[in-house]
């Protein structure tokens, strides 16, 4: 445990620039992960109700006309 913690400290926290970059990258990664996951759950709950689920019916019909 102590070895892991000191490893984290030495690699990520010791240098200010690396620490700041870690925070920024972590924020971006967390947001992307959270958004992707929550959107996936949302789309599963509302499967078949949203426009993107039904638009293929009308998009295909439109392309046939052209």
């Amino acid at each position: 445990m102590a070895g892991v913690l000191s490893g984290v400290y030495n690699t990520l926290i010791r240098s200010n620039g690396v620490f700041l970059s870690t925070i920024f990258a972590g924020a971006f990664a967390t947001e992307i992960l959270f958004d992707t996951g929550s959107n996936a759950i949302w789309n599963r709950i509302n499967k078949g109700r949203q426009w993107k689920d039904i638009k293929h019916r009308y998009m295909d019909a439109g392309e046939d006309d052209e």
Partner: protein
Amino acid sequence: MFARTSLRTARAFANAKTGATRTVVSQQRNASSQSSAESAPTWKNTATLSASTILAIGSCTWYYTQFGRTAHAMTMQEEGLHATPYPWEHEKFLKTYDHAALRRGFQVYREVCASCHSLKRIPWRTLVGTMMTVDEAKALAEENEYDTEPNNEGEIEKRPGKLSDYIPSPYKNDEAARAANNGALPPDLSLMVKARHGGCNYIFSLLTGYPEEPPAGAVVQSGLNFNPYFPGTGIAMARVLYDGLVDYEDGTPATTSQMAKDVVEFLNWSAEPEMDDRKKMGWKVMAIGSVLFALSVWIKRYKWSVVKTRKLQYNPPALTGLPNKMNPRQARR
């Protein structure tokens, strides 16, 4: 009861004042006269008490009937029948609109409602991506003519509609609408779900609630129709939705209730087009917020752990100069 007791007390005081020598005599006289002397006051007391009780109850009743009851500005008929609550799927916390229903509902609006009701606040562009493709919406917009900006001669010409135009109204203005509808103004439907008590339930009940004929005793003015859900029960709009009125392109049977349900969901969308995004954002906020709340609870407990787990020890100072009874230690010895 209280009156009799006080009478007795008064007599007792009178006896005490007359002196010790006459005490025995007066007591005897008091005892002998009690039955005859008290018969008249008892009857009067009962009458007084009964009268005052009746007066109190009566005045309370009068006051309540006069001022205590709930005041209704309108009769029940004028209020209209309360709409039945229906289990709308799109009103659930985590459900979006059923966009196929929105598409059907817009078809119902276009083919049925739009002959009288405007939808002023909805531009064609909002239909794109919610219930229509770009090409479909463009084609619909181009069917209508709109005024251009004044040209070099100051003339205003007509041009076909664009996606940025708003859905055209059936009448030029409210006065024209009134004139065409026997004096009754068909309200704009853009925000109708938000504008009426009961929202979706009210509009659905209104559309499907026309009886075959008005009930016996109901007064329906000429030019009006009977609908129990409409405040006042006399509505200028006749029943419009009948089975098979429109042909749904997705093959859904066009029953009256199906069309009413679709158009109500469409009108809910037109009143709250942001609902899908709002609900999606809302539950994300709840998810992140609950994590942050749990974190803040943990931090509070962490910070307070020092205070909560400390032990206070009180050593009272030695009180040598005081006498024994003031000093508990010395008193105990």
